[in-house]
């Protein structure tokens, strides 16, 4: 492997990883607050991508830059997240983790098949979002939109970290999973905080959709489920519920995927899933997670 190929793959891996990290952030925040795997999270990305597909031509026709379509996508995804949380997840929240998991799975199937009915099974091609040139440095071609994607990812993750650690709302979001009753007594509206978390998580999914469509301009109805699963792996890898963990996990999964693809193209998914299994068996709490004992 030459150095230029290595650097090229590294950049592609970081690009892929930044997308996974953003999606993983959504999983981690939701899991961190209500201990539920939101299987539908991947499908929020799919909905976001379809929104982009339909709004980008409108934006271009109106003479505005194409990436402004992300505002519409964020709005649609945020509303969708709130709706799903209010009508499907909130009623089963008390019923236990099994019911919550099944409901989340059902919502994922629902969104996928709804999209199939609404938009058809045929894949659509999204128009170019960023029209940035590609620069070549020492035999390595650097598409600037890839660098931009990585930059957006890093900025959002830093922003989220500051929000959760530094603001009052962020503090409330950290308090709710620790003790719901005590949080209520401290004047936190638990339901509103959970809804807010869903809202933020699904908005991040919309941003991830923009980044994904900038690199791979193709939307299909099942794009969300596979990407969602990879991002979930990233979240578990880094330590679910921990924001920096999502970043590390996402970048790792992205790099693993791109580098395995170089050597054994047919096997990259197996390697990704294999990594997840190994991590879960060796250190179920993830790279940054702390082991907590189980109370009898």
């Amino acid at each position: 492997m030459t150095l230029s190929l290595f650097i090229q793959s590294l950049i592609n891996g970081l690009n892929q990883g930044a997308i996974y990290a953003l999606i993983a952030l959504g999983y981690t925040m939701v899991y961190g607050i209500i201990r539920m795997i939101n299987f539908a999270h991947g499908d929020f990305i799919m909905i976001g991508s379809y929104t982009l597909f339909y709004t980008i031509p409108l934006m271009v026709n109106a003479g505005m830059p194409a990436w402004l379509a992300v505002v519409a996508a964020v709005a649609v995804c945020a509303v969708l997240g709130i709706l799903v949380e209010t009508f499907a997840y909130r009623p089963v929240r008390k019923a236990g983790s099994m019911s919550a998991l099944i409901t989340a799975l059902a919502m994922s199937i629902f969104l996928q098949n709804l999209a199939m009915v609404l938009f058809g099974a045929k894949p659509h091609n999204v128009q170019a979002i960023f029209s940035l040139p590609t620069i070549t440095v020492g035999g390595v071609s650097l598409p600037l939109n890839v660098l931009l994607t990585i930059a957006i990812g890093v900025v959002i993750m830093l922003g989220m970290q500051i929000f959760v650690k530094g603001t009052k709302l962020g503090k409330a979001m950290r308090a709710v999973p620790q003790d719901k009753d005590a949080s209520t007594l401290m004047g936190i509206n638990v339901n509103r905080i959970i809804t807010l978390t869903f809202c933020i998580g699904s908005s991040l999914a919309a941003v991830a959709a923009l980044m994904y469509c900038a690199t791979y301009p193709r939307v299909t109805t099942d794009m969300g489920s596979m990407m969602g699963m990879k991002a979930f792996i990233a979240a578990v890898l880094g330590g679910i519920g921990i924001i920096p963990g999502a970043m590390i996990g996402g970048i790792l999964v992205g790099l693993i995927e791109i580098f395995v693809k170089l050597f054994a193209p047919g096997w990259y998914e197996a390697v990704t899933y294999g990594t997840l299994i190994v991590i879960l068996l060796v250190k179920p709490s993830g790279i940054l997670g702390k082991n907590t004992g189980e109370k009898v």
Partner: protein
Amino acid sequence: MTKQRKIAYLLNAVGVVVIFALLMALFAAGVFGTSTTYIQGICTTACYTVIMVASLNLVVGFMGEFSLGHAGFVSVGAYVSAIVSGALAGKGLSDLGLFLVAILAGGLAAGIMGVLVGIPALRLRGDYLAIVTMAFAEIIRVCFCNFSITGGGKTLSGILKLSTFPRAFWVMVVCVTFMYMFVRSKFGRTVQAIREDYIAASAAGINVTFYKVLTFAVSSFFAGIGGAIYAHYMTAMIPTNFNFNYSAELLSEVIIGGTGSLTGSIIGAVFLSALPEAMRQFATYRMLCYSVVLVLVMLFRPGGIFGRWEFSLTRVLGRLTHRRETAKKGA
């Protein structure tokens, strides 16, 4: 065995034979006209779906753990049996013999796979176990996509069409009987004790891991048999048939039918595999309806439609005779 038990078994056997005879008579009489083979195909589909769903219910309902990778074990059974029947074809075995050897091989291979996956995976519980089973199923699928013997990602076709309706029906009857016996046996009761409280169970001297792996292996064995019938009915398959969506479909049938009720699984599987065929024009809405029903079931009846209720012919008959007796007394 008490006399009552004996009568119960006899009654159930008679009931099954009557259903079979009725269906065969309907087919022979040509009630369905030109679509007889079509209807027979739907019935075969229902038979192998029942096996798959009931076997998944052993894990989800009776062990209380969540498996999102059942399609992986189904695919192991399907591919192994297809390879075995292809290798043994024309070696002097009768069709029936070949069919039985193939499905047994498929079941055993899936069972072994179940043990291999179960030993590491069942150390985890809840959400994490669900994710790991899904990961294993995806790895199995990727393997089938890359091995040349399984078609290397392309369609594996030319599998002998050995799954006729009578064979599928009787295999289903045998499988469901064994699963029912498993659930009612010492092993089944132990597994249910683990489901209720695994800490208490292990404090009572139960080897929790052993029983979990055992149940997982039994479940995978029957999933493999279901897959084997599927392979010899479809005669062509591609690894992407057994993706996450198929696992999710099987799981939703278990949950709608009732977690912890084999009756629920049987009725659920029969209806949910026959209905979409009957309403072909709504095929695109099938999974949409499943998901809505799933959410509604979770909201209003978290245990599934049948909950943990099991159908018992003896109980029905007992109630009928009892009512007659009380009626006599009253008169």
